[in-house]
């Protein structure tokens, strides 16, 4: 047996930069597990999620924090949702499956995505250059979530705080995505 420990190296691990009026960082150990609500079993799945997280699965295009604040539930479509939480080990999916007692189909999405958190008073100005979604505070509430495309890359954007957005895009194109966001920040500085 080979004595070799695999090293975890997500594409943007450790990225953390400050620009004038904006910070941009890749949150560490961001785990994502998708939930698919079984046809006919939606109510049971929703109930199970509520029991597990102390928060109801929100409406489509919304997200909600679990009661203890440790996980964010994002509803993407009538039968699909994400659970986003901090989890270092590669067992996010069984962790969630156990928590909801198998009431929904679960798929590990952690390594499918790369996350970037953009925050600060100039965050919206920078995102204006790549994000077709209206991010005006009155139009995109804290907790709102939308999937869209930024610089040709599919992106999930979630407003997690007053001036803070979590952006998630494909991990294979993480470098292009980072470049797109950094360029937007620099172009609007």
């Amino acid at each position, binding site marked *: 047996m080979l004595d070799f420990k695999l090293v975890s190296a997500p594409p943007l691990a450790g990225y953390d930069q400050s620009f004038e009026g904006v910070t941009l960082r890749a949150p560490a150990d961001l785990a994502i597990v998708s939930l698919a609500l079984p046809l006919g079993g939606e109510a049971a799945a929703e109930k199970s999620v509520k029991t597990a997280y102390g928060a109801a699965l929100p409406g*489509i*295009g919304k997200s909600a924090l679990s009661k203890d604040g440790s996980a964010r539930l994002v509803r*993407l*479509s*009538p039968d*699909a949702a994400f659970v986003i939480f901090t989890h270092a080990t590669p067992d996010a999916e069984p962790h969630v499956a156990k928590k909801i007692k198998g009431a929904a189909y679960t798929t590990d999405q952690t390594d499918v995505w790369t996350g970037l958190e953009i925050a600060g008073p100039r965050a919206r100005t920078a995102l204006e250059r790549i994000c*077709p979604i209206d991010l005006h505070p009155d139009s995109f509430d804290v907790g709102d979530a*939308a*999937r*869209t*495309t930024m610089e040709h890359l*599919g992106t999930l954007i979630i407003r997690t705080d007053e001036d803070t957005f979590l952006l998630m895009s494909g991990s294979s194109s993480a470098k292009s995505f980072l470049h797109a966001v950094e360029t937007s920040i620099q172009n609007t500085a």
Partner: protein
Amino acid sequence: MIINHPLLGPRDAAEFIYLGDASLIDRPDWQDEGADEKFYEYGYLRDNPAGEHQELWYHEQGDRSWLVVTRNTLTHEISKVELARDVARARGRSK
């Protein structure tokens, strides 16, 4: 163009992929009499109306839903947007 997604609200058409005539939902039954003729019509023959047209759009850069969009081909006015799944069920595609 903007498509007013029934669940997500107005979204730029750039998020969508166009497929074509919503009659593609009405896939014939392979065991029907004359299935070959029906599949031929299903596969190859389309109406090309100058006016209201029901067509399939896929929200690929969004929630991955297929939509039936009623669009006027002369004005681009979109008068109705439905989830294709609902339309399929209404057209009797439930098993």
